[in-house]
């Protein structure tokens, strides 16, 4: 049986543009994914409150949120479809060489996607066509599919970062065991938990932020308070947990991808008692203008202030990621994450001590800011882990330059996609404004 290997490297002038095009597609899709993960659960909670109390306010809120969910899901479906196209359009050699190893994750994800699409259809069109209980029940598969979908997709990402489950013989993946590769791989659970919490944080802070803006403009009835408090409570609880989960992620990276960790911290040389630098710029193996915290990196990564931490010098220069991109993204994520955690703790403290929502205008201003910032942190997190993996598409097995398509016209595709996504973003912004302005009484 003859196998044809596609690994032969092709020349591609526009590798960077191909990577940027892929990154753009993720930047557009991932925030929508967050709403797919977390928003259904929040809408369902509000509907459940309605079923328990019979208070029409909850029904109105759940119905209005359903419309937002529908619009964002439509955008999520198409941007997700684009991603599956791009896996072939931009990285055909990657799919050709390793599709048999990682593809299963996406095939299973396809079914999660199906369930999500089917039940979201039933949920949206079922408001007046199903009994209240049946309608509530029809929303539960959406929330579950959001979880299984992220599980399977992130299992693929975990595999790219920590490839297992196959043997490499003359550039060809043989003896492939996809189930082991994806789900027997110990290196994806931390990513999954991190992303899942991020989904709830982004959704919670963006939705709460929108109602905080409403409050700052002076509209503050029971409806607005409810609509703000529920997502805010979720996000405020997730944010401090995320700090600790993030720390766990860092330790996992230190163990399995030391070069990536070195890029996070700009650690040029392998050393004991490695420091952490806050801010600064990496140049020639050092962080300039940063604020050093001695031994902190050793302590955080290995729970020992004298532990030896591998630096960038452990691998040849052509196997190092672009340090400043990774490092700035990492610091952005950590900085925003800390701010969001403090904001969450502030809310919880006020709730605990005074038994009410915060009243300071500054809190609501910070909350308005927290919405977009949480999206920035989300994207920075993905830049950290994905650019930190470079130059590899499959960590230490296949380079991104070996995976790229040999086809021409990448800049044309990139420009077209950027324009189309700009249009999509404007369209979504227009819909959300429209939905926000519709009077409350309009609901049937």
């Amino acid at each position, binding site marked *: 049986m003859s196998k044809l290997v596609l690994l032969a490297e092709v020349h591609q002038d526009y590798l960077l543009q191909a990577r940027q095009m892929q990154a753009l597609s993720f930047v557009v899709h991932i925030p929508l994914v967050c709403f797919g993960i977390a928003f259904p659960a929040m809408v369902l909670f509000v509907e459940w409150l309605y079923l328990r109390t019979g208070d029409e*306010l909850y029904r109105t809120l759940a119905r209005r949120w359903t419309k937002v969910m529908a619009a964002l899901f439509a955008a999520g479906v*198409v941007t997700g479809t684009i991603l599956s*196209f791009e896996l*072939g359009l931009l990285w055909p050699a990657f799919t050709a060489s390793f599709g048999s190893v990682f*593809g299963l994750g996406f095939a299973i994800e396809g079914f999660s996607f199906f369930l999500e699409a089917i039940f979201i259809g039933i949920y949206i069109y079922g408001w007046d*066509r199903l009994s209240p209980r049946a309608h509530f029940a029809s929303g539960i598969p959406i929330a579950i599919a959001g979880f299984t979908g992220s599980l399977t997709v992130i299992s693929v990402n975990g595999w790219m970062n920590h490839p297992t489950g196959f043997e490499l013989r003359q550039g060809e993946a043989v003896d492939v065991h996809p189930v082991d590769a994806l789900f027997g791989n110990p290196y994806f659970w931390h990513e999954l938990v991190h992303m899942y919490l991020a989904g709830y944080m982004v959704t919670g802070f963006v939705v709460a932020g929108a109602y905080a803006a409403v409050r700052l403009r002076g509209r503050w009835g*029971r409806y607005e308070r409810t609509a703000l*408090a529920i997502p805010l409570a979720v996000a405020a609880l997730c944010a401090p*947990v995320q700090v600790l989960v993030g720390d*766990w992620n860092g330790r996992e990276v230190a163990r399995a991808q030391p070069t990536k960790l070195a890029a996070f911290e700009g650690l040029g040389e392998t050393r004991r008692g490695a420091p952490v630098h806050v801010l600064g710029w990496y140049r020639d193996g050092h962080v300039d203008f940063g604020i050093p915290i001695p031994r902190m990196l050793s302590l955080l990564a290995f729970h020992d202030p004298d532990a030896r931490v591998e630096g960038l010098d452990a691998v040849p220069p052509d196997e190092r990621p672009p340090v400043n991109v990774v490092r700035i993204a990492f610091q952005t994520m950590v900085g925003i994450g800390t701010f969001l955690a403090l904001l969450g703790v502030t809310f919880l403290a006020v709730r605990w001590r005074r038994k009410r929502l915060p009243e300071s205008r500054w809190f609501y201003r910070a909350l308005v800011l927290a919405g977009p910032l949480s999206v920035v942190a989300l994207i920075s997190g993905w830049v950290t882990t994905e650019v930190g993996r470079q130059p590899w598409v499959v960590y230490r097995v296949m380079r991104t330059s070996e995976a790229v398509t040999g086809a021409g016209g990448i800049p044309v595709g990139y420009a077209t996609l950027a324009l189309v996504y700009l249009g999509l973003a404007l369209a979504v912004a227009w819909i959300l404004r429209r939905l926000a302005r519709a009077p409350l009484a309009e609901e049937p």
Partner: protein
Amino acid sequence: MHLYDLPLVFALIGLAFYTVLAGADFGAGWWQLTAGKGQDADSIRDHAHHAMGPVWEANHVWLVFVLTVVWTAYPVAFGSIASTLAIPLFIAAVGIIFRGTAYALRAGASTKRELGAIDTAFALSSILTPFALGAAIGGIASFRVPVGNAAGDPWTSWLNPTSLLIGVLAVVTAAYLAAVFLCADAARLGEPELERKFRARALAAGLVSGAIALAGLPVLRFDAEPLYHGLVEGKGLIGLIASIVAGCATLALVWWRRYEASRYTAALAVAAIIAGWALAQSPVFLEGLTVRQAAAGRDTLVAVTVAVLAGAVILFPSLALLFRLVLGGSLGLGEGVAERPDEGRSLLTVLGPGLLPRLAIAFFVAGIGFLTVADAAWAHSLGVLCFFAFIVAAFPAALPPDLLQTGLKRR
């Protein structure tokens, strides 16, 4: 049939579903585009939208299913196809974005003028996507996709007689399917005017697609000889005949106003021609690459097969539920109207006001112990569970107390 054929069969079944269901959606866009202006045109556009709205997302997921199965089970073939046919596939992808945007936008539009503008602007994608996908299939079927990374010609691989034929056929078939389905929907809703319009459209589109298909056979003979011989002399003949019979039956059923049955014969006509193509081409996948050579290793094939079969067990009942709701108008509404929400009890009284926050704090501390301090993998799993338990336990307590209780007093 061998194990290495099985995922391809699944992918072709998925392709048939995609062609029928998403095809009808794109076709609906075609009728929206050509509806013209005025009251009648608005009613056509509205009807097309309402019929497709609840199901279009699920319909489009079939394409994702096809892509994922092919790249998992036949990775080398997938890489070759996607790289050589990058241009039509990208055009199809852009068309899909437009179609989804139109649906999203419709949620926010309020006036007739806005709706009309949105539909017209985005219905263009209804032509773009089926044509581009059909042209890509034409490239595969006429063996213009060699094995390798972008090894084929980026233009002639999809701009050639076979591709043009299949692309045009895809657009017309989509319009035909949409007209049949929308006609059946109009009849079910008791809209005689719309029924009459879509009946005429279904008959016209059916005749046009039949004519193009017949006129296309000589094109195939000249441009894609192996495919032609496979279709008219080889194993593909069964599919070709089945498709012709089902196509004629659909026309007859629409003529006699037996719309419900015509839905299924129309779908069958499309499925049969896809099967015919597959049989005519088998066992060759791409030039110089048989299905067997293209197939991934045994473990992968088994895993895909198991995943697809297990997924189908969940998928088909769910799909049936959705289509029953959409086609039937309601599900169990009768029992539901009388059903009032339960007696109000606040979350806090249900769960005990003092206990939960304490429990939450305990979970949080345990989470730090297991996830942050401990180093073993089992401890980490426990730590994650503790943190999730913390969030769940603390959530009711984190909501402002007046929020839940005001709701109760109002009752």
